[in-house]
């Protein structure tokens, strides 16, 4: 087990009467990628901004390499905020030069350009960039000081699926260089693809934490059966307990049943006369885990 590069203990933060973060403790291990997951309003951004040193917690403490946040963490961390504009009328090259001059240590521009694939628009004004290009520039800015810890706050929100996948490969490349990453996202697939460990947040607290596969194994056994609600309603149950035992879960016009024994469950459904021609069987995901833990869907 590697040492923690960042440690947060009992963080709390309120805005007026709203308790955005109620009690969060976590550790980010050196060389790992930790995903902070949850729907909008779960407290992810408030938590990450406290960890970045942008927001001051009402209580609790944060240590970067054993020291309170300050000049050391500002020099050695890289941040990509969820909403950031770049100075107008500057080219990508000039933006990178500006930020690299603010740090005592900087990555050569050629290396950043290659790593983040910026060569096509290096001399273009930042306001002429597409969403995906802009996110790559913001990531390059976050990497400009060869950071030991990189914060990525919902880096792919608003990107089209192709741009999102391109961004994922970029983050994988950065991971391969041994960087430590703390990522927030509300895309469960993104967390599964990129994170070694995830912490699921809801209503200002972490409700589950661990490696994605380990969490799924811990909470689920087997697969999920999905069918149209109208098909499920056609079943005739001799005993209402049979229906309850399946624990059907409604999602829009679909019904989902989690099962550890697919054969038995299908047999029960057939015996009850449920049409099975439109069923879908799939493995459980982090999204299922979230629904199971909170009783609600991940909201975009």
């Amino acid at each position: 087990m590697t040492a923690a590069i960042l440690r947060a203990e009992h963080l709390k933060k309120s805005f007026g009467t709203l308790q955005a973060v109620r009690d969060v403790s976590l550790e980010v291990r050196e060389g790992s990628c930790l995903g902070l997951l949850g729907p909008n309003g779960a407290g992810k951004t408030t938590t990450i901004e406290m960890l970045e040193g942008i927001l001051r917690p009402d209580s609790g403490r944060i240590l970067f390499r054993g020291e309170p946040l300050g000049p050391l963490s500002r020099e050695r961390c890289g941040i990509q905020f969820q909403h950031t504009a770049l100075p107008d009328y500057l080219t990508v090259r000039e933006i990178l030069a500006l930020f690299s001059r603010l740090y005592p240590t900087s990555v050569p521009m050629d290396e950043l350009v290659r790593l983040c694939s910026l060569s096509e628009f290096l001399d273009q004004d930042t306001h002429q960039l597409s969403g995906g290009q802009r996110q790559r520039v913001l990531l390059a800015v976050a990497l400009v000081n060869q950071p030991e810890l990189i914060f990525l706050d919902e880096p792919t929100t608003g990107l089209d699926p192709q741009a999102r996948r391109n961004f994922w490969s970029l983050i994988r490349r950065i991971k391969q260089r041994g960087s430590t990453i703390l990522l927030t996202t509300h895309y469960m697939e993104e967390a599964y693809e990129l994170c070694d460990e995830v912490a699921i947040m809801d209503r200002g607290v972490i409700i589950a934490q661990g490696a994605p596969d380990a969490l799924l194994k811990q909470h689920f056994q087997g697969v999920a059966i999905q069918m149209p609600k109208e098909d499920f309603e056609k079943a005739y149950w001799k005993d209402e307990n049979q229906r309850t035992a399946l624990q059907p879960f409604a999602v829009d016009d679909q019904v989902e049943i989690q099962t550890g024994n697919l054969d038995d469950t299908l047999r029960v459904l057939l015996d009850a006369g449920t049409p099975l021609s439109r069923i879908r069987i799939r493995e459980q995901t982090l999204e299922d885990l979230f629904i199971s833990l909170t009783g609600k869907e991940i909201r975009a």
Partner: protein
Amino acid sequence: MSTRTPSALGRIAAVFDARNREYLRDRSAMAWNFLFPVLVVMGFAYAFSGNPQPLFKVGVLVPAGATLESLREQAPFLSTPQVEWVAIPEQEGSTSRDQAFRKLTHHAFDLLWAPGRYWLNETSPKGQVLERLIRSQSPNSTRETVQGRAVRYVDWLISGLLAMNMMFSAFFGVGYNIVRYRKTGVLKRLKATPLRAWEFLVAQVGSRITLLMVVSAIVYGGTHALVHFQMVGSYIDLAFVLLLGATCLVSLGLLVASRISSEEFASGLLNLLSWPMIFLSGVWFSLEGTHPVVQTVAKIFPLTHVIDAARAIMLDGASLAQLLPQIGALATMTVVFLAMGAWSFRWD
């Protein structure tokens, strides 16, 4: 990977450089800064280029205890209808006498008269016509002369325009820009770097003052080439006054922007500050003769002191020593604005 010693000066230089580039690439703002004053000067130079009104204007120094009417009984020519006779009460230590002589120097008066003597601007043809009128009726009057070119409205206006241009550039180039940076998250991004707040502010103020001085020099040179306005004082003194004025106005813009995160509110506040200054600081017209309350209120505005000082240098050749009240007011305001702005500044 390259490593260097962290330096506050290096970080200030980086932000200074980036801000200058932003300004130079913002074509619309730059065009406004350069073209607006030049077009206004040219417009007024053209508008006032026709023949002056055929009316004589004479200042009459009225001794204490006398009135213009009582003087007319002794000197009937003071009732000549084609001449506008302007009474100037003469009192011990009064500034109105000095102002009357300045007006004679600038051809705002064609002649200045007092019982038993008169003063004439040797370069004023109208003054020589009036002299004949006076000597025909009062041949024993003592003749004295002053010298000075006629001050056209455009000569008088140029210092106000330079200062007003500086004010807009300072307010909107620093004040509005910082608010926009804050709203869009640029400041938050910079906060996450080793850059400290004072370094950022020094870079912003330094960049804008440098650009203001360069723009003012170009506008000055351009308008001078076009209309050849008067400049009788020292260029170094004028540059010093404009530099101090620019620093003061930029500091005021910084103070406005120190906490606000709404562009609309910042814009409203900056307009609320700038418009009274445009009308009450003597950009377009002199406040001489206005209600004393208006003249007192005008002294609250930094623009008034910049314009007064610049105008005195350009038209009267005033030295910095003579402008200590204006310089003192500007320096005090600068320190107060800068201290309050830096103290209340927040990144987000």
